[in-house]
């Protein structure tokens, strides 16, 4: 495949069957490898789409400063595009995100403002909104409320999946900004009647710092519950266990939120298998494991050790 610029190489990622983790020939689990995007995560799609939409609308003009609350990947994607397009970028990120994410953001030239660990992404959103009010000339693309976020997935991710696998029965992705689920979900519901749209929501339990469950609830403006068929809540232990299984059994080196999506994918696959139904379950590999190497979860001798290693870090 040939492209005229690195930014043009976003998307068109592989969809691979997982022969060992699939329950049977009739029930297959497929991984959409979004880590194959230019900066290594699914967020390249919405980041580029949001920037180009803002340019088209005239909101974003040469010399502008972009502001964004992010737990890492969206900021990294925006920062790369901002550097190539000549914008300044400021990212608000929870202080308990991995060192690799900070290093990557800095590498692309982003300025980082840390928000307190308590409250996780919710607090980062609040701090970013305060900064936006103080700096009215800054452009906050705001992935949690920008229709171009699901718009990117409606225009690219959804059509790619359906073209590769017309027999898809379930689509599974992590629930963060909700952009992937809303965009791919709407597209597939229109084109593949009967498809199930399955959310994998991270459960910030005792193991993870995030006080999100105790804080005021934050529902992204993009969220529309009617797009979802069902929702899984995945604890840190299961997310880490599945991340390690994906590596050990299928050779796919993915980040921890991917383990959560895989857990939900295997949950719906097992239900189909028990019910004697055929299924093609697609889940999103949101990013590779590189940014989480310093946690030690991939080489820890047991899942318990790996979970302990992750303690205190925001993984989704």
């Amino acid at each position, binding site marked *: 495949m040939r492209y005229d610029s690195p930014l043009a190489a976003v998307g068109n990622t592989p969809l691979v069957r997982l022969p060992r983790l699939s329950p049977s020939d009739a029930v297959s689990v497929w991984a959409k490898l979004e880590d194959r995007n230019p900066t290594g995560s699914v967020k390249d799609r919405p980041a580029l789409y949001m920037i180009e939409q803002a340019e088209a609308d005239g909101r974003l003009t040469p010399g502008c400063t972009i502001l964004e609350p992010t737990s890492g990947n969206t900021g990294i994607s925006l920062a790369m595009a901002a550097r190539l397009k000549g914008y300044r970028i400021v990212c608000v990120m929870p202080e308990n995100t991995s060192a690799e994410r900070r290093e990557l953001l800095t590498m692309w030239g982003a300025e980082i403002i840390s928000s307190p660990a308590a409250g996780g992404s919710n607090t980062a959103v609040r701090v970013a909104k305060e900064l936006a009010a103080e700096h009215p000339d800054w452009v906050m693309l705001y992935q949690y409320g920008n229709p171009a976020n699901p718009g990117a997935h409606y225009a690219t991710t959804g059509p790619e999946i359906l073209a590769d696998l017309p027999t898809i029965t379930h689509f599974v992705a992590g629930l963060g900004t909700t952009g992937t689920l809303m965009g791919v979900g709407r597209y597939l519901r229109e084109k593949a009647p009967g498809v199930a749209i399955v959310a994998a929501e991270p459960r910030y339990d005792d193991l993870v710092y995030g006080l999100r469950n105790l804080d005021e609830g934050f529902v992204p403006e993009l969220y529309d519950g009617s797009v979802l068929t069902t*929702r*899984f809540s995945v604890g840190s232990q299961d997310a880490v266990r599945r991340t390690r299984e994906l590596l050990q059994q299928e050779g796919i080196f993915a980040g921890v939120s991917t383990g959560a999506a895989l857990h939900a994918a295997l949950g719906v696959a097992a239900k189909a298998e028990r019910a004697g139904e055929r299924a093609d379950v697609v889940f999103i590999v949101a990013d590779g494991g590189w940014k989480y190497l310093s946690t030690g979860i991939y080489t820890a001798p047991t899942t318990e050790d790996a979970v302990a290693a992750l303690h205190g870090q925001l993984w989704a």
Partner: protein
Amino acid sequence: MAIEVRIPTILRTYTDGEKSVEGAGATLDELFSDLDTRHAGLRDRVVDGGELRRFVNVYLNDEDVRFLDGIATKVADGDSVTILPAVAGGMA
């Protein structure tokens, strides 16, 4: 075999501090009634007027039962049920 029920911190006063207890029943409704015979008051914190309480989430094998059949959701031996407090104005 029985059904494992994971109890959130704020409800462990009903289970002598136990993080998980076991119960039986064909539906969540029956399961919560069964639990109440040994952990009096627990059912009332989860169920209100035949429905799940608004700010409680219940998961069957990690799947949100509000997307299944709510309190009428069928359960079987070997299943795992998780009770979690929901955030005010949460996603449900």
